[in-house]
């Protein structure tokens, strides 16, 4: 993560989670989570609902006390510090602006609570913040008089006004429509660049996490499934869950037929053999595994023009749908069905029932460990 440390500005805090655990009754909401967040980074906690991301955020904020484990902010444990003394900013999903205060009073709230600033100095800080979120002219309005997007900006201004070194955002764009959400994503990134605060951003929207973050933490069933940059997560997912959760994917059950050098030859359901770079895969000969091919990596031809060292699968178009920017095909190959994205001009001539050939650049196919239930054959071989 050193590449981010360089970009980090002085005002962001470093956050470390150490074996953090929190259970509600018998159910563990967060199970032994450890995480290093470099100063100034924009880190997303991404996962389906119930994966523990919001609980993690509430533990960092101090609304919940961990059962075990520790939270370190700049190497200092804050597990026993009450929320109001943590000097953290937070943006809530419902904005949670104080309805009985004007926009300026909402933004000034942390200053009144945390600082001894004079009235003029506070006024100046509030104006600066409102200018930063481009709402300079709305200070005297009440929250109910603002649109959702504007309320979101006020919530950002309030969270950042006392220069917290850590900013928590809990699905802040969940209540906005798609256009406004994309606009606010850009806006939040701009504000992050200009203030340099470390940001922990909770979302269940993978696009949001991929486009905004320096680091994405994928959470699944109260644990961290994988941590990495958006590119690493998308292009080199460590497991089935991450591969499936991020983007569209073709996941094919496969058996390792042969290992030759740094390449595996794996057999898929239709009996065809596909070559995969070994990479970090720990699969062994005869072991089960899952093959990942992203739909956009596959190219479709109507003739079997096989290039050197390329695999080709023959199949039949089962379904074709138009999505504006692309056509999406379901291609039956033996017992498997592969999703494929095709450019507009290519897809226009294709029809259901057409016989097609699928190829891809070598290197885009990845081998993932098979899910737990299928590991028996695997384990037998490892012994």
């Amino acid at each position, binding site marked *: 993560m050193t590449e981010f440390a360089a970009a980090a500005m002085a005002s962001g805090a470093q956050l470390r989670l150490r074996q953090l655990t929190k259970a509600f009754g018998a159910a563990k909401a967060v199970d032994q989570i450890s995480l290093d967040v470099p100063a100034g980074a924009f880190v997303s906690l991404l996962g389906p609902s119930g994966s523990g991301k919001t609980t993690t955020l509430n533990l960092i*904020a*101090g*609304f919940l006390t961990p059962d075990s484990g520790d939270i370190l902010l700049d190497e200092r444990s804050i597990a026993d510090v*009450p*929320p*109001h003394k*943590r*000097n*953290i*900013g*937070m943006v*809530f999903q*419902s904005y*949670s*602006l*104080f*309805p*009985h205060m004007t926009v300026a009073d909402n933004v000034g*709230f*942390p200053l*009144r*609570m*945390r600082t001894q600033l004079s009235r003029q100095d506070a006024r100046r800080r509030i104006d600066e913040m409102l200018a930063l979120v*481009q*709402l300079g*002219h709305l200070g005297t309005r009440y929250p*109910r008089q603002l*649109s*959702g*997007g*504007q309320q979101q*900006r006020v919530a950002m201004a*309030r*969270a950042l006004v*006392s220069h917290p070194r850590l900013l*928590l955002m809990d699905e802040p764009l969940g209540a*906005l*429509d798609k*256009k*406004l959400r994309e*606009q606010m994503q850009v*806006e939040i990134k701009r504000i992050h660049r200009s203030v340099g605060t470390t940001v922990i951003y909770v979302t269940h929207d993978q696009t949001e996490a991929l486009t905004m973050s320096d680091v994405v933490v994928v959470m699944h069933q109260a644990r961290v499934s994988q941590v990495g940059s958006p590119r690493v997560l998308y292009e080199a997912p460590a497991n089935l869950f991450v591969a499936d959760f991020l983007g569209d994917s073709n996941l094919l059950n496969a058996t390792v037929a042969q290992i030759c050098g740094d390449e595996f030859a794996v057999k898929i359901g239709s009996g065809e053999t596909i070559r995969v770079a070994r990479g970090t895969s720990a699969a062994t000969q005869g072991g089960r595994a899952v093959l990942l091919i992203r739909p956009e990596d596959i190219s479709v031809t109507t003739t079997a023009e096989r290039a050197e060292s390329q695999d080709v699968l023959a199949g039949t178009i089962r379904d074709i749908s138009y999505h504006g920017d692309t056509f999406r095909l379901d291609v039956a190959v033996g017992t498997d069905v592969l999703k494929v994205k095709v450019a507009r001009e290519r897809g226009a001539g294709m029809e259901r029932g057409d016989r097609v050939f699928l190829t891809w650049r070598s290197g885009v196919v990845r081998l993932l460990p098979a899910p737990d239930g299928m590991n028996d054959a695997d384990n037998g071989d490892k012994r």
Partner: protein
Amino acid sequence: MTAVAEPRAAPLLRPTLSLNARLLPALLLLPCLTWIAFFFLAPLILMCWRSLASEGFSLEAYSVLFTSPLFTKVMVTTVKTAAIATVFALLLAYPLAYALTISGSKVRALILVFVLIPYWVDIIVRSFSWLILLGDNGMVNKALMGLGIVSAPLQLLYNPFSVLLAMVQILLPLTTVTLFGGMLRIDRTLVTAAKIHGASEWQAFRTVFFPLSLPGVYGAGLLVFVLALGFYVTPALLGSPRETMIAQTIMVEASQLLDWPQASAAGAVLLIITTSIAAIYNRYFSLDRLWGGSDK
């Protein structure tokens, strides 16, 4: 300025209702409306009519009322007693209602039971129980004398103190439940937001929760005040003639002096005072919120 106004939900097109569907609400309302018409509206109109037209149309009953020093005095006592009782009921009920909002479901159920049990006990029984407690041979005086704090029994009954004490006790459950209802409507994440932005527990209460609870306080205040204006049994049992309230006067006029026009006029005046207070209040504190209307 890049913010875009968000699209609002398009107004729902009202489907054309069949005759039956339009009649249904009316049918559902009918029993209730009939009841109100016969047992509330009709007597009310009759009362107003009687106050104006005993022997031909005249405002005599009203002019007698407003020139009578006794009536004025009783009216002042009534408003004053009701106002003081309301303030004390609010002061006592607020912490209780707040405890209800922040407590878990088990503790909440327990507190609610203790709040509501007295509410289900008849008002006369509750007033009488104060007689037993506060009388010369009552528990309070016996305890005080037993402990040697006083040598002779204190005069705890038949004064403003005993009337107010009992009234507050009787009004407390309703006040608590009304305040609690208002407090439940406050978004708790606002308090959380205050805390993460630097407010201690007390500061978060003072700057966020308390101001947001005030509409509920105003609403409960009005409700309890109007109710207190009409108290009859409590001042009659626990007060002296000096604590006489308007309802007692009306009762005396009607049942002992048999002066129905006079009693009706007093009733009408009480009604007018009550509704105008409610109207003025509503203008400033927007009581809609209490009944679940939108927060303005």
